[in-house]
């Protein structure tokens, strides 16, 4: 495996979370916009959740990638055990 999946995954959610959070901050208090979501600033709150998720994945992914690079990928034999990712 060349690429730890958690890196692109984390990056995508970090960026999406950032976009939503910033947009939520900008539009905070816009009652007409948030009438649909029952007066909750859905962009801001969900943006923060996604941002946290994205950053966690990114940190885990970077650690995984370093781990991968230290041990060049070798195909595992069937039935043998491998530690970590």
């Amino acid at each position, binding site marked *: *495996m*060349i*690429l730890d*999946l958690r890196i*692109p*995954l984390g*990056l*995508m*959610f970090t*960026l*999406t979370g950032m*976009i*939503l959070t910033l*947009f*939520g901050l900008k*539009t905070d208090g816009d009652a007409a*916009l*948030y009438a*649909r*979501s*029952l007066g*909750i600033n*859905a*962009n801001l709150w*969900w943006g923060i959740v*996604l941002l946290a*998720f994205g950053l966690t994945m990114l940190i885990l992914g970077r650690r995984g990638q370093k781990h991968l690079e230290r041990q060049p*990928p070798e*195909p*595992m*034999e*069937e*039935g*043998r*055990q*491998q530690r970590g*990712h």
Partner: protein
Amino acid sequence: MLNLTYIDWLIMLLYFAFVLGIGFALKRSMKTSKDFFQAGRALPAWICGLAFISANLGAQEVIGMGASGAKYGLETAHFYGIGAIPAMIFVGIFMMPFYYGSKARSVPEFLRMRFDEKTRALNACSFAVMTVFSSGISMYAMARLIQALHVFDGLFHALGLAPEGIFTFSIVLSAAIVLLYIFLGGLTSAIYNEVLQFFLIIAGFLPLVLLGLRNIGGWSGLKASVPMAYMHEWKGVAHASTNPMGIEIIGLGMGLGFVLGSGYWCTDFLVIQTAMASKNMESARRVPLIAAIPKMVFPFLVILPGLLAIGLPTPHTTTTVRTVNRVIYHDTTIVSQQVEQGRGLVPAKINPVTGKPMLTASGQPLLDYDMATPNMLLHFFPTGILGLGLTALLASFMSGMAGNVTAFNTVFTYDLYQSYIRKGASDRHYMAVGRWATVGGILLSIATAYAAINFNNIMDTLQLVFSFVNAPLFATFLLGMFWKRATGHGAFAGLIAGTAAAMLHHGLTLPIEARTGIHGGWITVLHHYPSDMAQNFWGAIFAFGTNFIVAVVVSLVTEARPEAELVGLVHSLTPKPARALIAWWKRPEALAIGVLLGAIAVNIFFY
């Protein structure tokens, strides 16, 4: 009706960029056909596990489960509790050792190893045809939904294009994206993107459920606003007349649990391919079990939006009067007949010719259940998070399509091209064939999507034919893996007889309130079922039973294969793998028991 702003487009574009970026990043690691078709058999179990359920989480699942939630209530969760989870545990614990251990590269190839060439050819051909048509149906459904939601209307208007082009634009866009990332990165790319889509679907649907529940007054509010039978998964299941699906416990357990669920999760290469891509046997066995964990909580995510849509108040045309500076204003909110005749947020189906709502035989408006989940998105999401929700919907369409396309290119290349067209070519040659099979498969899918516009019934007909072919399959695998006496002739005869039995059953029975034709009874009507669901389940039971009996009888009168050839393919002839290296709690069996207990807990909660 739908106002998308730059922020929605930004999120959508970001997703497309990542999907394609993954394809490009993986291109350089595609060196052999094993890398391309089998992801090098080197992926960790958690990635394969999430891809395992994501491959199934296509449009039919997300839209269909929402629709079913609106139509039948929480009983829909049986598709997960009885249909999927036990089958996933079974395939992980008992069947994966043979799929993975036999080193077969595809499910049809396993059939050749266990039985014979003709059984493989039959399965490979029907499977290849089905995957192409399924991805075409998926594309058609997506394009229709995009049209109905007016996603691209603003864009087309701004660019001065005719709105008629939206259907083609949606199809070409999604096909091009899926094609590009599979062409570049093969199965690895498809699996990586399926995991991305998995998280995106959660990110898009979880806030929807939370907002919906908050609006309706939480769980107790939901209970108060839908009929009582909708809120119980098991209560009333003993008799067909006391539950919304109209199916009794035997048909449900046998039909859905034993035949349809297992037939899909244990034999369909679409999902099995992701497990076969993992790095070792223990991982491969853990893949379906890991997949079963999110599957347990998915009823919350995909069924609840539909149920909430039914429970929410139906919008009506209202007039409010207000006085400002002694001027009286009458504010009228006009709601179309389609919405007003519907129930909750589920609109009525409108006859395109008369513009009037279509009625059922008993005079009630026919509801367009497929719009339940999409309408929830539009109702609750403001711009911004709406972009995320729509992207999640698009992602689900694409993940379903991608799974079909990678399954198609593998089966085509290994089981049809390499076996019957050109044997013994170089590995590079087969990899190139796989890439072009991807292109060909997608072009055929596009053709199917267009055929679906011109022939109204083609989708229903295709799905019906698939169900005839799929229903008996599980019996063949069960006999193959657990009965060493089963022979190739037996398997082949059983498959043909099972499919014939499914057709015969469909031709002789009819659900109540349906007309003869596509719904059944095209030979003559011998029996009426309370619902089409009941008809499906019993049809599957008959097909499975016929296959089982015919395969056993024919096997007993034909010559058995020598036992030495069946080592690693049949349970009783395969030595148990050494387990000393792994702590007991890391073994797949321990995980399986945990999943089973979790599934029971969820079922008790929804009783």
